[in-house]
């Protein structure tokens, strides 16, 4: 399902799908691709992707133009995102990745704000309650995938604002 997403002008520009030989032009091109990937994933609340999915996604496949970014170039865009701290490979074989259109620290901040605002410091939550509970339905982090959530909580843990603990059937977190 592709929701109404406003593609940037570059997406309609055929050469955007050819890795540019000019170094300066290529830098601009890669920056535009990175922006596009992050905006797209943010709109669709997509937290991770496989390389296969990426190849077939409208993101790298402009169906109307019939132009697609070749897989070697997709890899270069992904590497660029990784260098900027917006992507993390999930497995050694680089078949899928986390796409962090919001940094784990930022997610952590949002979660902690909600906890404090609702006066729930010193409470314990299961991971499920945080991402799928009724109470968080209106929050931006509702629906967050588990890996990204754990990263966010780890960031809070480092700031001594939370502690990841084991609960009866999995993991939970205590906020301070």
């Amino acid at each position, binding site marked *: 399902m592709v929701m109404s997403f406003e593609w940037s*002008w570059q997406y*309609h*520009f*055929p*050469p*955007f*799908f*050819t890795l*540019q*030989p*000019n170094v*300066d*032009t290529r830098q601009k*091109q890669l920056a535009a691709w990175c922006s596009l990937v992050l905006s797209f994933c943010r709109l669709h609340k997509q937290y991770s992707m496989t390389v296969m999915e990426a190849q077939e996604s409208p993101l790298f496949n402009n169906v109307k133009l019939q*132009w*697609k970014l070749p897989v070697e170039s997709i890899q270069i865009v992904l590497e660029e995102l990784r260098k900027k701290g917006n992507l993390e490979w999930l497995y050694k074989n680089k078949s899928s990745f986390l796409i962090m259109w919001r940094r784990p620290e930022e997610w952590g901040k949002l979660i902690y704000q909600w906890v404090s605002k609702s006066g729930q410091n010193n409470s314990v939550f299961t991971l499920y309650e945080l991402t799928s509970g009724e109470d968080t339905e209106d929050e931006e982090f509702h629906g967050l995938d588990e890996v990204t959530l754990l990263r966010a909580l780890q960031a809070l843990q480092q700031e001594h604002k939370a502690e990841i603990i084991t609960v009866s059937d999995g993991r939970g977190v205590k906020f301070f």
Partner: protein
Amino acid sequence: GLITLEELHQQVLKGRGKFAQDVSQDDLIRAIKKLKALGTGFGIIPVGGTYLIQSVPAELNMDHTVVLQLAEKNGYVTVSEIKASLKWETERARHVLEHLLKEGLAWLDLQAPGEAHYWLPALFTDLYSQEISAEEAREAFP
């Protein structure tokens, strides 16, 4: 690098706020000609019904200029088109296109059918925004 006169006009109007009414495209042309005379690297290239304004001192000679003018119709140009329209040898056409790529004025498209297409983003954004406005107009007044 390169920008169409229309695009430049839009940007200037945006920047001037309530004084926007008093800057015409002719005013812009006059101003740019003055800047050009001062040797600041500005250039004006007539293309089709409008002008391309060059804002960075890229080395552009007559060959480059005439190819830019050829690109105005579709936003891109190819070696074949240059050879057919301008009666040039392949090498001369390639040389100019390589230069435009090197100056960052053109982007390469290797997925176009047949041969490589060389696109000018400056011309494209103009064509693209025209298309969008036409579409928006059609949607607003079916």
